[in-house]
Every structure is written in C-alpha cells, then in structure tokens.
C-alpha cells in the first residue's frame, strides 16, 4: 500500500466500491495517518457546519460557555440584546484567551494580559493606556473580537462554519433537519440542556466513533452484558417486545448525515412507559403522550414516542433519541485520540420524577461509566491498536446490506457508507 499523500490524497478516491460484489472498503490508514487528519482539518472541519452548543445553555443575557470546536477555542456568549454569538476565544491584541471560565455570566470580559475589554457584541470598548495608538486605531471595530465566518442556529442548536462560502445551515442539514425537528418538538415549552456535562475521551480515531454511533450490527455481541442487565431489571422489558423485530432501519440523510430508527424495550421519558416507573410514572407518560398528540397530531406523536433514533450529523455531532436524549459532539486531537462532550437534553418544565428517570436512564447505557459505552470504547480502541497491522492488513469492510439497498435493516451499514462517501468527496474536493 502506498502512503496516502502519494496515492489517496492525490488521487480520486480513498474508498473502494465494487457494486458487482456488493463490497465497500475503507483504507485503514484513514484512521492512523497524521496527513489524513491534517487534510480533514482543512477539508472537513474547516468547511462543514460544526455544532457548538444549545441556546438553552446560555439562557440569560451575558451568559457564556467556552467550547473547543474543530480544533479552535470558541465561546458562545449571549448578547445584552439577547442574541447568541460565537467568538474565537483569543484577544485581538496578543492572543490571550479572554474567556477563562468554562461558563459564567459577564457584561464585559477583560483580557488578563494587558486589559483590553470587550462587550457582548465583541466590541473592544476599553483599553488601559490608550496613548501610543493613533486616534482612529480602534475605529470601525478594527480590534473587536472575531467570530467564525458563519454562525447559525437550527431549533436552538447553534453551529459555526469557518468557511465564508459555505451553504446555509438548513441546506447543509438536508434530511437531518427533519430529525432535529423530531427532537426539538418533544417539549411543549421547548428543550433545555440539563446541568452536568460528561467530559471524556477515547483512544481512537474520531471516525470510529461516528461509525459506532449508528452501528446496529455490534449490539448483540459488544453489548451482551447490557442485555443481561436489562433482563435482570425486573419490569423493564415490555411484555410485547420482540427483540428480533426492531422495525425501521438505517438511512442516509444526505451530505453524510444518517439515521437509524428502531424500536426498543427500554423506557423513553417521551413517551414509552416501563413498569419500573410505577403508577405515577404511567400517569405522567400518558399525560405527556396526550399533550404530544394534541399539539402535533396522533401520527407525529406516535413517531416521536414509539421510535428510537440515533441521528448522525456529519461530521461530529450525534444525537441519540433513545432511553434519554443525548447531544454528543467529539473532536479529533490526534489520529488516535478524540475528545467527547455529552449532555442530556430534556423538555423544559418536565415533571421532576420524569426528569430523574431520564437522567437515570442516560447513565444506564450511555456515558463514560454506563453499561454499554465503555464496551464501545474498548471496541474502538481494539480497532485503533490493531490498525498497526498495516500495511499487511489494510482495509476495513463496510458492505453489510449492500445486496438489499431498498430495505436497510437496523443492523446494516448504509449509514456508515453514507458517511464515507461524503468524507471521500470532501477529502478529494480540494485537489
């Protein structure tokens, strides 16, 4: 196998697709090579819309949260005019980070180095010892904080794009917008991120996590111990549930986004009751369901309530609408290491008992100490370490389900193929 910069990155395609054989192959150096990551930073993280945060995380004027996104240090700051804005977290003087807390509230932020002060609109409004600069030196916002080229929100999900020529966010989201609607519509009063952030990491390439997040094929083996847990949890399994028929399936949503939609036996705070939640939980779930039906119609309420969705927004945002609602975004640091941040999303004004079950549920499967995620991480790390068997063993196989393109089952791999096809396009685009 040739070095990627000589073959793949300079050529047309990295992936190999053989429709005759129904075979789809991805080169393993895509997960290990620094040159690939450098290129990804330019062509993917430099051009795609990237998730920064949810508007509910900065409810009041002056609220801010600092985030690392696409290799940049950003912060999200709600203006005194109520508008959420995103800035690069760096002073326009000599570069110090002006936002030093992870979150907080301020009308102004003063850079700790030489004291330049910025307001919530990013304006450089004050600096000690202004002499030594021409009178108009700071005029016309010349030294104001700098924002990413584009900042837009869709249903309170705030994204940035570092490419001034990027398409608008809604166009970018393509078919994924419909799925964000299914999430955002769950709260009568809107949705909010709950307190507490799961900050963790994986010793694996970022693309392995994207693949894993909608990989139905691995559930039975990798999560065998989770299913043991479910069986041992009296009253959790719904009587009528047939684990061999989860319905739905995976599909591509355009632009590399994808979803798998399926049914599962666990409780959904919106709005699938399980006996564990008792009679008061049953009454509350019935109320939630009735409210959904009244507001959105029976059909849409059923879709929201009865189906689980793992939603993949290219390149690095995963929303799991499953036993809870997760917003999980991740950032590559090196080819073999990624950083994750996950929060729990919930309807505003949710009944405290349901909120408690939602958070309890989240921990059951998900997160860095759940009964499933650590096993996922183990799998990704086993892959990453074993990619050292290059060049002799050089290709991953992502072919499952290619022989039935019209009926993609939940354990097929169409959602990963849609990722790789988009990845391939973007990585080849700037030749």
């Amino acid at each position, binding site marked *: 196998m040739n070095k990627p910069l000589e073959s793949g990155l300079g050529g047309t395609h990295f992936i190999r697709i053989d429709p005759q054989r129904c075979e789809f192959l991805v080169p393993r150096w895509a997960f290990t090579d620094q040159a690939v990551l450098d290129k990804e930073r330019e062509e993917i993280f430099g051009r795609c819309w990237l998730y920064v945060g949810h508007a509910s995380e900065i409810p009041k004027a002056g609220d801010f949260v600092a985030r690392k996104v696409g290799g940049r240090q950003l912060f999200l700051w709600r203006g005194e005019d109520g508008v959420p804005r995103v800035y690069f977290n760096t002073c326009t003087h000599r570069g110090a980070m002006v936002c030093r807390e*992870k979150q907080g509230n301020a009308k102004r932020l003063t850079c700790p180095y030489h004291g330049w002060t910025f307001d919530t609109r990013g304006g450089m409004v004050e600096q000690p010892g202004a002499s030594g600069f021409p009178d108009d030196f700071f005029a016309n916002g010349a030294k104001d904080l700098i924002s990413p080229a584009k900042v837009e929100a869709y249903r309170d999900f705030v994204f940035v794009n570092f490419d001034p020529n990027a398409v608008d966010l809604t166009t970018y989201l393509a078919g994924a917008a419909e799925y964000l609607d299914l999430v955002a519509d769950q709260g009568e009063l809107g949705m909010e991120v*709950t*307190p*507490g*952030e*799961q*900050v*963790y*990491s*994986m*010793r694996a390439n970022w693309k392995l996590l994207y693949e894993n997040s909608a990989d139905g094929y691995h559930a039975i083996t*990798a999560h*065998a*111990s989770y299913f*043991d*847990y479910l069986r*041992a*949890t009296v009253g959790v399994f719904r009587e009528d549930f047939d684990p061999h028929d989860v319905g739905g399936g995976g599909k591509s949503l355009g632009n590399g986004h994808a979803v798998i939609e399926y049914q599962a036996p666990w409780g959904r705070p919106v709005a699938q009751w399980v006996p564990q939640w008792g009679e008061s939980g049953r009454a509350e779930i019935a109320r939630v369901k009735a409210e959904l039906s009244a507001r959105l119609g029976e059909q849409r309420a059923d879709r929201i309530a009865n189906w689980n969705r793992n939603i993949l927004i290219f390149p690095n945002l995963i929303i799991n609408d499953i036993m809870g609602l997760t917003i999980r975004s991740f950032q590559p640091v090196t080819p073999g*290491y990624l*950083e994750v941040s*996950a*929060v*729990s999303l919930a309807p505003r004004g949710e009944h*405290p008992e349901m*909120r*408690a079950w939602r*958070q*309890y549920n*989240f*921990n*059951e499967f998900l*997160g*860095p*100490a759940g*009964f499933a*995620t*650590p*096993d996922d*991480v*183990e*799998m990704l*790390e086993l892959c990453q*370490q074993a990619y050292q068997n290059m060049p002799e063993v050089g290709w991953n196989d992502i072919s499952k389900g290619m022989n039935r393109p019209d009926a993609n089952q939940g354990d097929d791999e169409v959602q990963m193929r849609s990722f790789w096809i988009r990845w391939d396009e973007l990585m080849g685009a700037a030749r």
Partner: protein
Amino acid sequence: MALLTRAEVEDFLYHEAALLDEWKTMEWAELFTEDGEYLVPPTDLPDADKNAALFIINDDHHRLVQRAKRLTRRTAHVEFPHSKVRHTIHNVRILEQDEAGLTVASNQIVYRAKRQNLDTFVCHTIHQLARTADGLRIRSKRVMLDIDGLRPHGMISAIL
C-alpha cells in the same frame, strides 16, 4: 453507644478498597445496605442533585449490584481481562457520627492500568455508613473527581 474510632473506620475503607483491587465486586456490592447507592457526579458539578443533573454514575442498589455482576463477566469487554486497579486512601475524617451511622470523608487515588496506559483518578469521597448488626454497611458512596473531565482516562470502567 461506643463511638467508632478513625482507625476502625479506616479498616472498613481499606477492606472495601482491597475487595475492589482484587475484583471481588460481588463481595463489594454486599457491603451496601438494601437502599445503598453509588454516585459519581459530573466533574463540573460535584455537589449536583442526581435527580436533576446528568451524573457519570447514578446507581441505586439494584444497579450497583448489576454493575458488580457485569464486572464478573467476560462480556464486560472493557474489563476483560481485568485491568490492574489500586486504591490508596488518605486524609480520612469522621465528619459526623451518631447511633445510626457515620459520615466519613476521605481522599482517594485510584490507579487503573490497562494496555500500556495508566489512568489516575483523584477523588474525594464521602461515605454514609450505617451501623448494623453485621457491622458497618455503606448507605451511600459519593465519589467526586478532582479532575477536569475524564481526559485522558475516557471512562470509569472499574469501580472507584
């Protein structure tokens, strides 16, 4: 009521730690009362309420027993084979003590080694202990992490 000394409480904590270091997780689970809980709040909110905030671990008795059981199985892939784990316990203080039980604070360092990686968890831990006919039992173990997120650890797969 005879007050327990710090040394007696330390013996109990050392016993708990030894069980965990030896992967005797089912015996560890038996140290809890029927209404026992095991909690790890998010690193940014050590004092958070488990019913409102997103925790890292939020185990009631049922789930902590299941966690212990899971860790005895080969299918708990992340801990098969088991990593090497070592707890060290310092600064033990009895904060409160009455007929029913005690509140005990300690600093704990937990090391976990697997596949050439060594992860260090810096913890301050609050045990709510119950005095029972069978000796001390854990009503609540709350482990607060003095680290800025689980990086590079990535996870808590062993019991802290």
